């Protein structure tokens, strides 16, 4: 057991050494330099950028189309989303979320917001997290904010959630004992196997990942990262992940929304 632990540490030291840092710990107060912020697309390569910018080649647009059908009332008996919300009125919404919701008493993300409307206004059961219908609706709504700069409110009642998420971001976790910041701040632009580590900005989500062969939420992506460092996995829709979404959105402040993005 002890030997294994030592081996794990040795291989981790190797990873960090090849990454080019000495393994110093991240300072407890988080500082972020927005002038260096780059979308994950900058690390993804030209062919993916071309795929994302072409609405026919971008497979995420299949979900946007489906979301547009659902928006107009496919698969609900209740009034459709389009019955209340005028065409184009969702522009900018995804660029402001996650945000504090007074009725919910917590920070909510776009998926929460859609499900809240579904339960309160349409009197339907909430759509399951990670399911195609919720992904389609969130992709449809988020796509209307494409190109708008992300800007979320982290003061006021959202502050405690923001600080929890910031602490989560810089805390080492999992069997590999890595924090989000260890890779996405300290090693962005460097290699992890065949991949280039991005700065971890959430602007593409919900995004089509080639690895998934489908559209997935930011929660799914965060779970994939936590799985990668062998850490405990919160469920999709967990409040922890929503709060982390808020922190990441603050960290990506000013970057344009790309949803539905395409990523490796």
């Amino acid at each position: 057991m002890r030997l294994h632990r030592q081996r794990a540490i040795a291989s981790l030291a190797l990873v960090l050494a090849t990454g080019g840092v000495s393994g110093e710990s991240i300072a407890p107060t988080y500082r972020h330099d927005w002038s260096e912020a780059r979308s994950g697309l900058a690390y993804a390569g030209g062919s993916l950028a071309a795929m994302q910018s072409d609405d026919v080649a971008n497979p995420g647009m299949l979900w946007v189309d489906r979301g547009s059908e659902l928006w107009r009332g496919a698969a609900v008996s209740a009034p459709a989303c389009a019955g209340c919300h005028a065409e184009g009125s969702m522009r900018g919404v995804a660029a402001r979320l996650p945000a504090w919701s007074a009725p919910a008493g917590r920070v909510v993300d776009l998926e929460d917001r859609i499900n809240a409307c579904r339960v309160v206004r349409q009197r339907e059961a909430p759509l399951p997290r990670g399911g195609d219908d919720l992904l389609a609706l969130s992709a449809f709504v988020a796509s209307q904010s494409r190109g708008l700069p992300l800007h979320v409110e982290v003061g006021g009642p959202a502050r405690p959630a923001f600080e929890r998420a910031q602490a989560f971001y810089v805390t080492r976790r999992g069997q590999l004992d890595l924090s989000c910041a260890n890779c996405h701040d300290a090693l962005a632009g460097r290699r992890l196997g065949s991949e280039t580590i991005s700065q971890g900005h959430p602007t593409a989500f919900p995004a089509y990942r080639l690895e998934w062969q489908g559209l997935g939420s930011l929660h799914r992506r965060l779970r994939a990262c936590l799985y990668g460092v062998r850490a405990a996995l919160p469920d999709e829709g967990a409040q922890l992940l929503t709060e982390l979404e808020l922190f990441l959105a603050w960290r990506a402040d000013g970057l344009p929304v790309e949803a539905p993005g395409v990523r490796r």
Partner: protein
Amino acid sequence: MAFARIVVPPAVARGEAFEVRVSIRHPMETGFRVDDRGNGIPRNTLREVVARYAGVEVLRASLGSGIAANPYLRFFVTAQDSGPLTVEWVDDAGKRGTATTDVKVDG
């Protein structure tokens, strides 16, 4: 549920080739994967895709497990008369789907 896109240029000139782009939502399951419990996931790929322009078959493609999920096809057709361009497909599970768009020919 239309989970497919078919896109042609807004207007095309008679006698000229125009590009048709089709994207279909499909898992393209290879049959080689297993689920979380180790049970095999049965193969389910789009077996055949057929495109018809004004009722005339212009493309027939046999896809298989070598094609990634959500296949994207791109081909050229010579414009004759205005009419519907229809794409139909059937997968290994026997499920059929179709998507249609109108082609407008000038002149």
